[in-house]
């Protein structure tokens, strides 16, 4: 192992020991701060339950991300491609984006129940607006001379969108994805905490009411793992697209 990695591990170990010590010595109430050993004990006793919950939440988040991306980018490209549509629709989307969507959740619950469906739908709603709005902006901002060029070489509408408009709008679309995807994760976990029968959010919320702080912390760690995984995926996507984004900047 490289010395830098060793150093980082040593610091992390020192923190954990200090953390454990602070709780064991009674300096901080165990209900507020669970010791690392409590978290490990929670994992040992209820690991299976948490694993199921993790799978549920991961599935909800995965489905919501796919749908939010598809709907957001699709809507954005269609609306952004038409001057009239974007003049009519973009202001509505922006004002909807400004509403705290969580106030709609009781309605979703009434319509869809407290199962996974309402979580996915809420996740999609959370992510949809920034993705759609950024896509609209990206498509609208395209240099119109590219559209003239496309017509001059006889490109079909589909070819113009797929081969010219979409790639030119990508940098803006990707920044929408970054914001939107983060909101999907938050949306799913938060609604699980509000009312549900499964998922990491549900377990966190449930154990909080029982003052099982070790379990709560374990749930938080799992939620973090999920958020970090999503973030790594996004960074990967960004890097693949980033290759020509830097080309573009050098060009401009």
């Amino acid at each position: 192992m490289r010395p830098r990695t060793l150093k980082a591990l040593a610091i992390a170990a020192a923190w954990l020991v200090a953390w454990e010590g602070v709780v064991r010595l009674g300096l901080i109430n165990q209900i507020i701060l669970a010791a690392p050993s409590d978290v490990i004990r929670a994992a040992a006793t209820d690991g299976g339950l948490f694993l199921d919950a993790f799978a549920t939440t991961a599935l909800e988040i995965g489905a919501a991300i796919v749908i939010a991306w598809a709907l957001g980018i699709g809507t954005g490209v269609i609306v952004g491609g038409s001057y009239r549509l974007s003049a009519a629709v973009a202001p509505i989307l922006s004002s909807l984006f400004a509403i705290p969507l969580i106030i709609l959740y009781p309605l979703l619950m009434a319509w869809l129940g407290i199962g996974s469906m309402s979580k996915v739908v809420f996740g999609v709603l959370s992510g949809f607006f920034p993705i759609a709005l950024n896509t609209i902006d990206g498509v609208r901002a395209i240099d119109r001379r590219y559209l003239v060029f496309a017509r001059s070489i006889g490109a079909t509408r589909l070819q113009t969108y797929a081969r010219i408009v979409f790639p030119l709008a990508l940098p803006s679309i990707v920044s929408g994805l970054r914001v939107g995807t983060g909101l999907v994760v938050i949306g799913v976990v938060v609604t699980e905490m509000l009312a549900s029968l499964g998922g990491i959010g549900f377990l966190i919320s449930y154990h909080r009411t029982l003052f099982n702080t070790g379990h709560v912390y374990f749930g938080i760690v799992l939620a973090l793992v999920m958020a970090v995984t999503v973030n790594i995926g996004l960074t990967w996507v960004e890097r693949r697209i980033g290759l020509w984004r830097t080309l573009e900047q050098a060009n401009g």
Partner: protein
Amino acid sequence: MSTPVIEVSKLNKTFSAGRADVQALADVSFTVEQGQFVTLVGPSGCGKSTLLQIMAGLTGPTSGEVRIEGEPIRAPMPEKIGMVFQDPTLLPWSTALANVEFPLDLRGVDRATRRGRCTALLELVGLREFADHYPHELSGGMRQRVAIARGLAQDPRLILMDEPFAALDEQTRTRMGHDLLDIWEKTRKTVFFITHSLAEAIYLSDVVLVMSTRPGRILDTIPINLPRPREIDIIGSEAFGRLRNRIWHMITEARA
């Protein structure tokens, strides 16, 4: 005599701008014969680009008609007309070669044919060794050369060029003009070129069309009988100077 490549007859174009109508083109007529290099010169905002857009089928006239090889134009004809714009509009994520291939790619031309033809075109514009470079790695002049090669990709009979060298510095611009003549002589395409530079127009063309300020109308059609192949030195000659003065007076007096 064969049909002219371009026949523009009694073209008018009026834009409605709020309450007032703006007349961009007034009764424009001319013809361009096969293999000619014809340049339209006129002050900025005189409707030159509007005329080119109509000739390319990108927009319609208010009245009148444009025929390309006898066929009235109503929509772009990519297999007959290649275009080069002031901005090269290259795709930043594609190499020079892929940019030249792009129009053929969209038409479904197979990779090997595409590659062969477009490599030859890059060679023609002097960029063979830059085939794998991305647009941001090329100078402004080189990018415009790629755009010219791209305009030739579908092997059109006619090339329309809308101030293609306007954004380049003086030296690059002169050089590009010289090389464009070379390309023109090798390919025997018909070229219709737009510029506001009188020297560029005279240096390049067989015929210069002089356009007035808005509403754009053709003031005169001036044959340029300077010998070919032309070298850059010709710009300093007496005959060249006389032509330039004549066009200059024509434009300024029409404005007054």
